[in-house]
């Protein structure tokens, strides 16, 4: 029986500073064999650790089609992320995963996709966006609405332009009023309002909405107005976790353990959960 | 005693002087009295007073759940009251916003009651009953500690090892202590992590020593920590040793004189400082 709490070692291939306090990191298993048999589904997460500092939970923000590395993204905010901030190429980190359920990309085949994100929530959208683009023929129109407080707070900024080049893909960028730079060409306004005015093709659509609670709260009625049913609106919860494998009890919320039965839930499922997340 | 106590509480609630009375209730004789929070004057019949009312209720003045109930009246014994004095000196409470109901106490059948010199509350707004305060010499008050310290040092070390080995870090000591009010306790701080959170001998020694230091010159000897410890660890010994030092070196007995200067909060040219060379 293996020790489910002992991580695999991963080598840092590349670190990108995304914003003043956000970095993305590409890592690869030190063990070739582990690398070869590693599979995950977009939407799943991993426990990433720096020895002597501890573990943190992050979504795997690379596409499951990418075999050369696994990517995660974090904001510098606590003990572990503070330590991860100084990661350099060739450094070693610990990884356990993949854990949790995933976005039901198979169920989304043939549908229009709407991705809505705010601030640091881009990484968990990004894996699904790339997956959809790499299987472009399977999906209908793709609309990406991404907002942040200020222009410089947008994560994976450069990729937004690349996504916009794909056929039938629209990227709507927005910043909060006052957060625009002189050369800003995107929208100015809050994500819910921008979404409402964006005339998004919403028939036969599913939406993935991830962001701060207040953004989600005001975006949901907009999606409802656009005609999306609760079962077609998805999000990813971010409960605090320790073990990731349904043992430590921390992420329990009503009938579910978020680490096992989540983190991906439809709005329909969320409404059945107690307001405890 | 009980009738005047209930009547006083009813009056205070009835005329709107306070919104809540923090007192003792008891469901059945076999179970110790526990804290109750009476907000309806018709519920004062729930209040009890007997020789098992050991809890120091002062802690609840600091808990947000109880503060949210409105202006409180609190039932205290002469010993509990000392914590109020310190909390006021440390600017944690506004004394004028609290109505203090002192209850004369002949002892709660605890070890500390045998050397009590505060049977009769001295600073209460309303006092129920009458008891006589007996002068107690320092020798008598610290006899328990002195007896322990007569043991050879190796014995004492063995004693603490055996006792602290059992500590599970449930933090009942801290949570019950009326003077442990840090928003974030040092053992929970992790940037940097100063103390091991593990309930190992090392982590437990560090925790209890640091806690005793934090209470040096402040602990009022209410012995809640010892009383509530599920493992029966006699934390009183640690606190007494700090209290005795504070009394011997600075003539300070915490919580006995509202006009006194705080030992660690003030500098005096008379302070002994032979240790600074």
């Amino acid at each position, binding site marked *: *029986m293996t020790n489910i709490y002992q991580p695999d070692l991963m080598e840092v291939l590349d670190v990108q500073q995304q914003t003043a306090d956000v970095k993305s990191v590409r890592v690869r298993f030190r063990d070739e064999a582990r690398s070869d048999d590693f599979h995950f589904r977009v939407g799943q997460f991993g426990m990433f650790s720096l020895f002597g500092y501890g573990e943190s939970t992050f979504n795997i923000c690379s596409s499951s089609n990418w075999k050369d590395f696994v990517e995660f993204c974090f904001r510098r905010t606590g003990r572990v992320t503070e330590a991860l901030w100084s990661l350099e190429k060739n450094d070693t980190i610990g990884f356990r995963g993949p854990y949790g359920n995933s976005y039901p990309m198979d169920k989304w085949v043939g549908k229009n996709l709407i991705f809505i994100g705010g601030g640091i929530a881009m990484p968990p959208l990004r894996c699904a966006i790339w997956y959809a683009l790499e299987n472009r023929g399977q999906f209908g129109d793709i609309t990406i609405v991404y907002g942040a407080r200020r222009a410089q707070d947008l994560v994976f900024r450069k990729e937004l332009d690349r996504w916009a080049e794909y056929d039938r893909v629209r990227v709507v960028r927005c910043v909060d009023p006052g957060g625009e730079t002189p050369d800003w060409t995107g929208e100015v306004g809050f994500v819910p309002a921008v979404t409402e005015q964006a005339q998004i093709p919403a028939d036969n659509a599913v939406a993935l909405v991830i962001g701060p609670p207040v953004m989600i709260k005001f975006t949901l009625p907009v999606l409802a107005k656009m005609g999306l049913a609760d079962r077609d609106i998805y999000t990813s919860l971010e409960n605090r976790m*320790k073990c990731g494998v349904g043992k*430590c*009890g*921390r992420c329990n919320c009503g009938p579910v353990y978020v680490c096992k039965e989540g983190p991906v839930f439809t709005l329909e499922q969320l409404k059945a959960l107690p307001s405890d997340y | 005693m009980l009738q005047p106590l209930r009547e006083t509480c009813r009056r205070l609630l009835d005329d709107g002087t306070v919104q809540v009375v923090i007192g003792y209730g008891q469901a059945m004789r076999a179970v110790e009295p526990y804290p109750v929070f009476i907000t309806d004057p018709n519920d004062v019949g729930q209040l009890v007073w007997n020789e098992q009312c050991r809890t120091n209720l002062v802690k609840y003045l600091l808990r947000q759940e109880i503060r949210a109930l409105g202006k409180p009246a609190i039932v205290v014994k002469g010993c509990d009251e000392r914590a109020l004095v310190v909390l006021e000196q440390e600017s944690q409470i506004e004394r004028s916003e609290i109505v203090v109901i002192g209850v004369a106490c002949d002892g709660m059948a605890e070890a500390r009651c045998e050397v009590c010199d505060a049977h009769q509350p001295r600073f209460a707004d309303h006092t129920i009953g009458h008891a006589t305060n007996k002068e107690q010499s320092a020798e008598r008050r610290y006899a328990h500690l002195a007896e322990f310290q007569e043991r050879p040092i190796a014995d004492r070390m063995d004693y603490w090892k055996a006792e602290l080995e*059992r500590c599970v870090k449930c933090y009942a000591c801290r949570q019950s202590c009326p003077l442990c009010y840090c928003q974030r306790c040092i053992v*929970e701080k992790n940037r940097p992590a100063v103390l091991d959170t593990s*309930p190992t001998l090392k982590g437990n020694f560090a925790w209890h020593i640091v806690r005793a230091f934090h209470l040096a010159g402040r602990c009022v000897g209410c012995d809640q920590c010892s009383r509530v410890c599920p493992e029966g660890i006699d934390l009183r010994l640690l606190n007494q040793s700090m209290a005795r030092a504070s009394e011997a070196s600075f003539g300070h007995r915490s919580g006995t004189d509202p006009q006194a200067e705080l030992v660690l909060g003030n500098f005096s040219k008379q302070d002994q400082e032979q240790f600074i060379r």
Partner: protein
Amino acid sequence: MSQIISQPAIRRLVKQWLREGKRVVAPVQIRPDLVSYQPVRSADQFLLDGFIRPLNSIKEVVFPRHEQLFQYRVRGKQIDLLPAPLPDIERIVLAARPCDAAALPILDHVFNWESRDAAYNQRRKLTTVVALACMEHDAHCFCTSLGGGPDDTRGSDALLFDLGDDTLEVRCVTDKGQNLFAGQTESSTRTAPSVPGPERQADLQQVGQQLEQAFERSDWAAWTNRCLGCGACAFGCPACHCFDMVDEGGPTCGARVRNWDACQFGQFTLHASGHNPRSAQSQRQRQRIYHKFHVYPQKFGELLCTGCGNCTRNCPVSLGVLPVLEAMQAEGA
């Protein structure tokens, strides 16, 4: 016919087990008013009668309060992980209360839910539980509300009954129990009379129904606001099993460890962002009740409680699950 053993014979057995290098855990008087399950160092140190219930639980034998998961060593860019060796010492829990033993099969569910916790399972395999039927109960006991009782055999490999005059009846429940006592007992015509369990009750069926609707009730604050937010209830509970994982040591060597944790601590669910889904104590109390009486039974088919009453006994302010369930029931559905 029954099988009996004398107290001196049991103590001789314990001596033998200790000599064989086995770990024996049994109730030990640690203070005049306190009994605690502790590792036994000598055969005359533990109690076989005269106590109601130890302040702690036997879960520690299979799920220690603190354990290393692995060690790490860092040399330059080289990092080595040294897995914690699997436990290999045989353990015998002697004179466990039935409400303690009953928690072990309940814990098995979560520690084997899809992924298996190796160290837990290994300790479980190495452990033989010899329970001691209760002769008395106190005001906090409510095992009978949960299908248990003074002679409940769930989780026990053997059950002892006090027959008086230093004699115990032995009823073996499993092969492990049989093996432990093989050749050590005598046949007798004496059998233990059945002892009534505690009368204080909670109607768990009604509680289950109430919990379907009770989450948003405003009464939680009134039911629980004396809670001080410590972990005394969880740590003394035979079934509570939440844990924390932290790194201890420096940047060059140390270990990742797991420690017991408790859902009543304010930090338990605190996000790095500062958001706390359960920022109020009443929400944390509500979680404890829901986890035990709603979530766990829905997921694993068993309540996460054996009615031992330790939560209330250990609580600085006499809370714990039974007073909350009683308050809930007094309010009606």
